[in-house]
């Protein structure tokens, strides 16, 4: 019996970690190229989740189109954030801390947009979008909602890795993540690369926003879940997307076990302590990629 409970908690953790992984990779992607912590990714996630909610709730669109609307909204909002908030600072060769402060400001600004439009109350996707269904594996149960998150996460990573490794734009993004100036000197249009990075990050943010909105509920503060992405990025190593993804899944499992053992109230304290210890002892995360400067 205890083994089954343990296994069920692992499944619970993996389900949670899959959503965290999507958030964390979208967040870490921008960090890799521009070397700052993009908390505005949370705002992108929030706007996308509400865009999906509107078409699901008011236009009664089915699941796949709802997800597509969320993904596309994420890409558009992410590009707008880059153009409005970050480009000018980059062109002025502003310090990294300016990017960081601006990203936090954008997160708050996008939250306010949602509050103005929807109020501070919560909303739910209609249950008809994805009726509660489970797969039984003996005594274990796996939710269809979270299974969908896991499958879509794996598909999104596979596509992302393919783009980064096999396509010209992906190779250019990787080059930019190593050295933006050198990439520019090689004749690559850096502006386009950065926009492309924000598009990919926004696509992932949109997907994670809709999936998280369906499995949890919607509130204008939904974007603050990006903090989990930040924690996973610190633990995994901000330079490594694979490290970040693995750390995010591990974080989900760890969180579930902490809630089951020490309770929900103390869990965030332990997780933040762990993050601080990582920063002090191994700032490059367990994937081992380090940067000389970051914010």
């Amino acid at each position, binding site marked *: 019996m205890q083994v089954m409970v343990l296994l069920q908690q692992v499944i619970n953790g993996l389900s949670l970690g899959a959503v965290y992984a999507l958030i964390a990779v979208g967040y870490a992607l921008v960090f890799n190229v521009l070397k700052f912590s993009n908390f505005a990714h949370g705002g992108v996630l929030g706007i996308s989740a509400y865009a999906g909610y509107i078409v699901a709730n008011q236009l009664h669109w089915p699941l796949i189109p709802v997800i597509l609307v969320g993904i596309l909204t994420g890409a558009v909002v992410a590009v707008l954030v880059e153009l409005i908030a970050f480009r000018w600072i980059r062109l002025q060769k502003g310090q990294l801390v300016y990017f960081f402060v601006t990203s936090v400001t954008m997160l708050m600004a996008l*939250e306010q947009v949602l509050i103005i439009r929807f*109020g501070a109350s919560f909303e*739910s996707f209609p249950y008809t979008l994805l009726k509660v269904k489970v797969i039984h594996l003996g005594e274990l149960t796996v939710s269809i909602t979270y299974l969908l998150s896991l499958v879509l996460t794996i598909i999104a990573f596979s596509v992302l890795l393919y783009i980064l490794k096999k396509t010209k734009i992906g190779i250019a993004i990787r080059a930019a993540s190593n050295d933006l100036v050198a990439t520019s000197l090689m004749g690559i249009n850096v502006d386009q690369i950065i926009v492309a990075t924000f598009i990919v990050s926004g696509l992932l943010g949109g997907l994670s926003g809709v999936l998280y909105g369906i499995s949890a509920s919607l509130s204008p503060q939904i974007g603050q879940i990006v903090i989990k992405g930040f924690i996973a990025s*610190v633990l995994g190593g901000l330079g490594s997307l694979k490290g970040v993804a693995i750390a995010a899944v591990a974080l989900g499992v760890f969180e579930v076990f902490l809630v089951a053992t020490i309770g929900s109230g103390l869990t965030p304290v332990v997780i933040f302590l762990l993050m601080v210890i990582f920063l002090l002892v191994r700032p490059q995360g367990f994937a081992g990629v380090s940067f000389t400067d970051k914010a």
Partner: protein
Amino acid sequence: MKKFSLLLIALMVFTLALAACAPATPATQAPAAVEPTKAPEVPAAAEPKGDILIGNLQDESGGMKALSSAVTYAATLKIEEINAAGGINGRMLKLITYDTRSDVNEAINAYTRMVQQDKVSIVLGPPIANIGIAIAPVSQELKVPVVGLFMDDKCTIQESGAPWDYMFLAQNAATAQGTIIATYAVKELGVKKVAVLYNSQNSYSVGLANPFIKVIEENGGEIIAKETYTSTDKDFRAQLTKIKAAQPDALYFPSYPVEIPLIYTQAYELGLNIPLLGSNSVPPTGLAPSTDPAATTNTFYPYGINPSEPALVDWAATYKAKFNTDAIAQSFSGADAFGIIVKAIEACGDDVSSECLTAELNKGTEYEGFQGTVKLSATTHQPEALPMAIMTIKDGKAEFVTYYSPAGPVVK
């Protein structure tokens, strides 16, 4: 330098996370200033003495909007009826509404402002215990009575056992509600081993869980799992998995509307096929379309009214026609709270002062409302023994089972 930068960011993130974990809506997420809502149309010219101003302290845009707005709607309907009939002593009633967004600091500021600036002499309070607890000591200073639906005993009774002088509850307190559903579970459903899942940061949830646990244990039952969560939690599967492993006969979850659909869905997904005992917050989010009906069968919860009673059905129809939303328990008990206020105003005649209104509320006058005969006790400032309806959910819709009191079934 690198470590320092990251530590600085971590510190900021931690601060943000702590702010996010706070039970109330952060003040930074909405404009700090709250504006009174528009007063209802006044059909006749006001008398020289002017309108009678009634404060209304509700969450109009936060996480408890679903329940709190119901109180505003009920009061608005009542005011329109009274004003259309010429008001009270020729004076029109006017509701001065402030949006608290479920934030206790906003609520304290709003209560102070409506008393000192708007000069209201009585206030219609919210169905939010945390706010009731915060307002109680302030009301001792400002001396303006609040009649509300805040269920926690601490909202109306001080630690000394004496009532807060200016706080009055117009529905059953948490102790009575927790006791009624626990008694029903033991005596009618025959449960012995019970699990409890509640929000340890929320007075409403704790206030219901404690008497429930006490009554279960006093009746020979056993609490075999007691799990808690916090106000920002969205994933309850870690707790529900432990609960399932403990193999209880039933699960009690006195939760807020935002948590209810998530708990239902996740419990169903984990295969927790046992009676689910809820609180009076189950509607509207526990019903369809917010929650899949598949997850809500086998639910029982205490409710202030039986919505299928003909008199209530008519009023609910008027309510829905006007506000385009279904009337819930807080609509009816909110109407009763407002009715108690109106009765006190009528009794005071020309002297609509907070002193006179407080004295009237303390007289224990009976009020015939939707919930039955509401008689406020002078020693607790809570209604004396109101039976409640036990409800269940069938195909996503609420269905009446029986009237129940702590002593057992009640025939009305």
